[in-house]
């Protein structure tokens, strides 16, 4: 087990380096002059050159990358934004909780919906309730989060005025403004995912219900309640747990659509802004943070899965 974890951590470092290199390269394949952007419109060519020097932009590629790595690993410094000279560390660490609130809150909401609906559908296939659920799934998968978000904003936020349309409120003072601002984003974010999960849970539960060991449990005289919880769900949820870990990991990288529609300053929102402005340090900062999140969560999901399924042996 320890050997496995160490090996995975080493591999994580390799992955991480690969991600940073690729990001770096992509942005240097695009011929735009960020120094000019930073220096401002009125800057003279000398001033631009000076800025370029300060920002290390006149060094060869590999030197820039090495400088960046040095800053990152040794000084834990992601650099300063080309756009507003803010420390990228601050930007990223400020954006992360926003995205985390959205993703984790959304995940709780979508699982809270998907599990009961999925189980009900599996137990009553082709019933009216099941058919309604399947229509809901279809719309959830087909409707784009941007459209859902805008519709919700418009109807609930603008027409009815029940909830704010944009922005994010910190959790610090009192929880209510935070919740108010997050409700519509949570619903929008969860709508799509809950559709996928209802379908997945429905099919895994239906499959598990036909397993021989479920029949054995009934033959032992177990009440349906026990058959469902101890035998059916514990097995049916295994693949769901893996998917959940992966989906959360990826979403933490930035739930771009929802953040943009609702103006939540999370990682996804910053990613878009910094790409627009060609703000390389911020782009890299967001990418670094997001890939770290994915890599770490991936490892956690693998370990968790090995823990809950005794058939898995980590090699």
């Amino acid at each position, binding site marked *: 087990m320890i050997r496995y974890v160490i090996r995975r951590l080493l591999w994580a470092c390799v992955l991480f380096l690969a991600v940073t290199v690729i990001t770096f390269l992509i942005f240097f394949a695009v011929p735009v002059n960020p120094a000019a952007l930073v220096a401002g419109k009125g800057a003279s060519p000398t001033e631009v050159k000076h800025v370029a020097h300060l920002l290390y932009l006149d060094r060869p590629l590999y030197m820039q990358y090495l400088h960046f790595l040095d800053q990152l690993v040794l000084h834990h410094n992601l650099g300063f934004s080309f756009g507003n000279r803010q420390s990228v560390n601050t930007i990223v660490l400020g954006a992360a909780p926003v995205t985390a609130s959205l993703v984790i809150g959304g995940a709780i909401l979508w699982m809270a919906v998907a599990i009961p609906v999925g189980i009900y559908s599996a137990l009553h296939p082709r019933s009216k309730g099941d058919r309604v659920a399947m229509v809901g799934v279809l719309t959830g998968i087909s409707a784009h989060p941007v459209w859902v978000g805008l519709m919700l904003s418009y109807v609930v936020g603008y027409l009815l005025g029940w909830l704010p349309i944009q922005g994010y409120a910190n959790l610090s003072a009192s929880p209510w403004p935070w919740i108010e601002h997050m409700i519509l984003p949570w619903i929008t974010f969860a709508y799509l995912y809950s559709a996928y999960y209802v379908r997945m849970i429905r099919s895994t539960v239906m499959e598990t219900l036909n*397993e*021989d*060991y479920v*029949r*054995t*449990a*009934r*033959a*032992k*005289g*177990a*009440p349906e309640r*026990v058959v469902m919880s*101890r*035998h059916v769900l*514990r*097995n049916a949820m*295994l693949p769901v747990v893996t998917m959940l870990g992966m989906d959360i990991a990826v979403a933490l990288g930035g739930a771009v659509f929802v953040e943009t529609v609702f103006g939540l300053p999370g990682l996804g929102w910053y990613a878009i802004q910094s790409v627009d402005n060609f703000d390389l340090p911020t782009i890299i900062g967001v990418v670094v943070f997001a890939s770290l999140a994915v890599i770490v969560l991936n490892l956690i999901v693998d370990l968790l899965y090995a823990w*809950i*399924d*005794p*058939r898995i042996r980590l090699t």
Partner: protein
Amino acid sequence: MPLLDVRDLKTHFRTDDGVVRAVDGVSFSVEKGKTLAIVGESGCGKSVTCMSVMGLNPRQNTQTTGEALFNGRDLLRLPPDELRKVRGNEISMIFQDPMTSLNPVQTIGAQLREAVMLHGDASKKQAHSRAVEMLKAVGIPRAETRVDDYPHQFSGGMRQRVMIAMALINNPDLLIADEPTTALDVTTQAQILKLMNELQRDFGSAIILVTHDLGVVAETADEVLVMYAGRAAERGGYADIFYRPEHPYTWGLLGSLPRLAQQGGDLKPIPGSPPSLLRPPSGCRFRLRCPYAMAICEAEQPPLAPVADGSAHLTACHLEPEQRRAESERLVGAMMAEAR
């Protein structure tokens, strides 16, 4: 008074293509401490019969009629809660495929304890020691450590032993074994059958053994019920069925057994295949494959009747008793001659 008395059991499944008459009027009984073997081809309704007795058929689109008297109570009419108390406690069932019959994410100890704690009020500790005791009884080595292992850490034969342990852990009066050895290799099969016979002796439970293998029947049965297409073809004691069979289907079954001493020559299967249970043939269901079929066989279903007055050996065949017995003696004689 028999332990289990099943009368005119019928189980019909409603499907999109029509009603499947899986079991269509089967009656049998099991005495305390004895073994009844239910034999027949795949699809003849032997498993469904057992599932109906246990109430394990799917609730939707299933209609079960008849009586299944167990210790005076009709299992088919019991409310679900009452039936649940019987299952795993007074009547236990084991199934065909041991590889998939155990919950893969629970230790076998946990599953055995569950079997105990679902009935009665044993503590977890008591249930655990009972589990270890049963594992020893079925011949699992190092039971104290193995009890905390997961199913995937056992072989098929061991898993079936675990299933048997789980079935017998509450000392049931009746054990229903649905093709328990079909998925196992021949040597393991022999071990499991030997184990079941020993346990029957030690625990005193009656056994219903469902199988399509006449060899298994020969080793274990006191009584035999031969089923065909959802109905009983013949019923009687072990000696009656093997030495004095009185149904063309049973003759066909016995005749189709390969002989070890046979040198070359073809196997003698029963021509044709089992009929559809959606639209079964009228009258006797075996008539389309029966070399002795007569006009009456198409018109009337033969009743399951004694071969001679007062006999416990019953058969469902329109052949005249004398003619039938003569044919039986002839065929059995020929089979015995071949065997030498």
